[in-house]
């Protein structure tokens, strides 16, 4: 049960519906048909059997009537004085006897012949004569009559008689009866009267019976010989009824037997007078004609129900499963990305409602997607702006200008230079106008920065800056180079013995601007480099991967907590302590920031690349798209 339920659940809904309709529509019809058939056949069978037994009883009565008539005839003949004289061997008038016997055949046309034999073997008959000279007393029927001692006896079909019928009635066409005439005093047999009855009267009686079943009647005598059977009987000899349990067969009843591979049903009734048994032989399993008719109608009914049922179940299941299938194919299309698909249809049923809900859902999804995109963009922009949010630049510029002016007055030119550079650095770095600045300005900014650093590490670092004039006017994200240069100072050149060189350059390459910061410092050990590189790669433009977000968070957090200069200068004023102690986490921070900004702004095909060899130096390059105009 569980299994079938399981398998049913896996079937398409169409088949499920068909199966349900068929079960509900057709099974009861077939069940009803079978039930009616079964009940009707049982009732009709019983009634027909009862009826058949009654009819057989009537047939027996008719047959008895004929036989009784013959018996009476045999007595009438023996009462005739002339016949008596013939039996007594006296003088008799043969003509008179013949005329007398003609009377019987005239009135009883069913009599085929009458023979009177006396105990000398002489005979008188109108219809029959002996074939050979052999005495009739040696005939079997004569002996049987003698044995019966005056009791009327049925011989059945005669066989091998020494008598010929002048009108050619064959042995199979007559049934023979004999009675011995016995002297009342001496009890000696004086002669025998034999009467042949035409089988025709029996067969007409038997055939005239209309049986309820398809089958036929046959008549057998007490020794089992057939008296009458139709032209094409199903069997030659009757199987012994109830032979197996040994009980004497009842005077009427029914039984079944298998003859020549056919199973037959027998309904019989024995006549007490003739001891003949009239048997109805019916092929079992062959339904009576009324039953056939009922069955015909039942089958027709079941057929039409099946026809209608199948048609209806196909139609209904189709009408139900088709829109569902349609809806399903729509959903599959939507699933594979086509959100513009819509369900068309004005059905008011559940499927229609489902379709409309589907449409609403798709619209909702579309709106949500657009909303998400918008929110994402806004979020990124907000993050960028927050980088610059907390600086109050003008106060700083003015202060720095004041310092520079004071330094010049006191002829401290070096101080004035440094302050000038710092002022320039801030001017660019805190420029709120735009995220993008021309490359020349970015380089100006980095030059100022380097100026300051050079002053700080006098003699230890030397810078070379080369800006390809072709790219000088292209716009780039501002403040990209400073963190990289800072890294190069603190992790590259500072770590090396002796003075180091930092090269900053920009040029166009492969349809992009390539900014390059190279140092000949300590370099990065390979394992650390690998980690750094994978970290860089994990910063993506789109996803909120933990690293990218983390970087951005850190940036904004730091902006919030620390003075802005700290950001801009990478904490250099505090000395390299935090960076050197922070390990690669510290050194990566500026780079990550740059990477995140580039990728968020332009996508994953741009960004930071790092190459390094221990003892040789490090090259960090930024791939940046070519932007000639700011389209605002």
């Amino acid at each position: 049960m569980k299994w079938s339920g399981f398998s049913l659940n896996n079937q398409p809904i169409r088949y499920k519906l068909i199966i349900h309709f068929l079960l509900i529509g057709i099974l009861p019809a077939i069940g009803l048909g079978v039930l009616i058939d079964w009940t009707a056949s049982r009732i009709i069978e019983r009634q027909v059997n009862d009826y058949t037994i009654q009819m057989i009883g009537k047939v027996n009565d008719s047959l008895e009537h004929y036989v009784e008539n013959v018996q009476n005839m045999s007595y009438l003949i023996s009462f005739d004085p002339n016949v008596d004289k013939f039996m007594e061997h006296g003088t008799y008038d043969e003509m008179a006897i013949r005329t007398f016997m003609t009377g019987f055949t005239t009135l009883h046309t069913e009599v085929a012949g009458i023979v009177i034999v006396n105990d000398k073997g002489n005979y008188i008959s109108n219809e029959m004569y002996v074939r050979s000279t052999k005495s009739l007393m040696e005939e079997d029927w004569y002996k049987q009559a003698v044995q019966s001692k005056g009791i009327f006896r049925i011989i059945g079909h005669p066989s091998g008689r020494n008598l010929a019928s002048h009108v050619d009635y064959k042995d199979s066409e007559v049934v023979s009866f004999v009675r011995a005439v016995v002297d009342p005093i001496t009890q000696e047999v004086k002669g025998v009267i034999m009467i042949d009855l035409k089988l025709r009267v029996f067969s007409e009686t038997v055939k005239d019976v209309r049986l309820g079943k398809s089958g036929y009647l046959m008549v057998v005598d007490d020794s089992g010989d057939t008296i009458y059977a139709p032209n094409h009987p199903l069997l030659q000899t009757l199987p012994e009824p109830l032979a197996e349990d040994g009980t004497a067969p009842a005077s009427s009843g029914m039984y079944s037997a298998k003859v020549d591979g056919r199973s037959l049903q027998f309904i019989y009734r024995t006549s007490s007078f003739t001891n003949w048994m009239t048997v109805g032989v019916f092929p079992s399993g062959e339904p009576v004609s009324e039953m056939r008719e009922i069955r015909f109608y039942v089958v027709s009914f079941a057929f039409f129900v099946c026809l209608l049922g199948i048609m209806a179940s196909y139609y209904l299941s189709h009408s139900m499963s088709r829109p569902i299938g349609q809806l399903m194919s729509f959903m599959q299309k939507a699933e594979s990305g086509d959100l513009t698909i819509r369900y068309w249809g004005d059905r008011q049923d559940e499927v229609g409602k489902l379709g409309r809900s589907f449409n609403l859902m798709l619209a909702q999804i579309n709106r949500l997607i657009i909303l998400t995109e918008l929110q994402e963009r806004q979020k990124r922009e907000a993050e960028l702006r927050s980088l610059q949010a907390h600086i109050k630049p003008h106060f700083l510029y003015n202060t720095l200008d004041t310092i520079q002016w004071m330094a010049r007055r006191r002829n401290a030119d070096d101080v004035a230079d440094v302050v000038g550079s710092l002022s320039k650095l801030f001017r660019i770095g805190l420029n709120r106008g735009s995220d993008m600045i021309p490359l020349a300005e970015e380089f100006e900014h980095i030059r100022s920065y380097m100026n300051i650093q050079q002053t700080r590490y006098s003699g230890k670092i030397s810078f070379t800056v080369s800006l390809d004039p072709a790219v000088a006017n292209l716009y780039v994200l501002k403040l990209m180079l400073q963190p990289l240069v800072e890294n190069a100072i603190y992790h590259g050149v500072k770590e090396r013995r002796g003075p180091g060189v930092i090269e900053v350059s920009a040029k166009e390459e492969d349809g992009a601007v390539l900014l390059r910061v190279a140092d000949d410092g300590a370099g990065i050990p390979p394992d650390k480099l690998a980690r750094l590189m994978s970290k860089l790669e994990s910063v993506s433009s789109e996803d909120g991967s933990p690293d990218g977000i983390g970087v951005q968070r850190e940036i904004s957090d730091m902006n919030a907590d620390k003075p802005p200069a700290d950001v801009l200068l990478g904490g250099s004023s505090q000395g390299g302590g935090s960076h050197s102690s922070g390990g690669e986490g510290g050194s990566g921070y500026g780079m990550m920031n740059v990477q995140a900004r580039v990728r968020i702004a332009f996508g994953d095909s741009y960004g930071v690349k790092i190459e390094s060899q221990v003892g040789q130096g490090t090259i960090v390059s930024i791939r940046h798209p070519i932007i000639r105009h700011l389209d605002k």
Partner: protein
Amino acid sequence: MFIYGLLIMSFIVYVINYQTSKNDDNPWETTGGLRGSIDEKYVMVTFQSGIDYWKGVLKGFEDAAEALNVSVEYRGATKYDLQEQITVLEQVIAKRPAGIALSAINPEALNPTINKAIEDGIPVVLFDSGTTESKAYSLLATDNYRAGVIAARTMAELTGGEGDVAILYQPHQMNLEDRTRGFKDTIHAEFPRMEVVEVVDAKAQRSTSHDAAIQLVAKYPDLRGIFITEANGGVGVGDAIQSLGNEKVKIISFDTDKGTLDMVKDGRIDATMAQGTWSMGYWSMQFLFHMKHELVQAANWQTTTMSPLPVKVDTGINVVTKQNVDEYYAK
């Protein structure tokens, strides 16, 4: 759709099967060919119904009934009595049988009764002895005139073609008169040295014929032959001639009952004329069956003027002599 087709196919097969099996209601009685039903009763009506002659006809009638699966009944006037036969025939018609085969005792007197049966829609055919003017459809009988002709030629053969001959008959019975006529005409036309000296009414009985024969022999010393037109007389004449010890008189009798055959066998009768009695009965039944079941060309035989059946059927005549007499005994 496949299942659909399958279902319709199987249903059609079932219906056809049902229709065909419905028709063969009783396969055990079938002999093939024409089939009637057992409640159709055909009646054979004769006169002097007890005589042996009819038994042969009745046997044929019964055999045909057996073959056609119908019932038969045999009725008849027990005596040679016109009124009795009319009464019997009326009674039979009243029972409305499927058909009547009738041997008419009288060529005219039965006509109204026969016509009445036909008007009632009961087919009637005549056998052995017919009528002159009735509407009965057919007569199946020996061509009695021709039987007389053949008897005459046989007589001429026996007597060497010369001498006096006499005829025993019974008046007012068409078949016997025809035989007499055929005999007389032939003797007169073909055998000039022979002469029919007397035609005697012998009442168709053994004793009267016996006496008539003795008188004839006494009256015509040149008598060479006697032709008896019916069976009963033949035996009587045979006995008479033997008792006279007269070897010259040849006897030709009629019909093949046991007594006549025995006499032919031992030479007391020189020849007898065998009729196709079985054929009369058998084909009468067949004719009636065909009429009843409207198997004849004129389906509306009750109203048409067309003859639906062969109007006259000659059932044949054979000469039985000592040489071939054994064939006529029962087997």
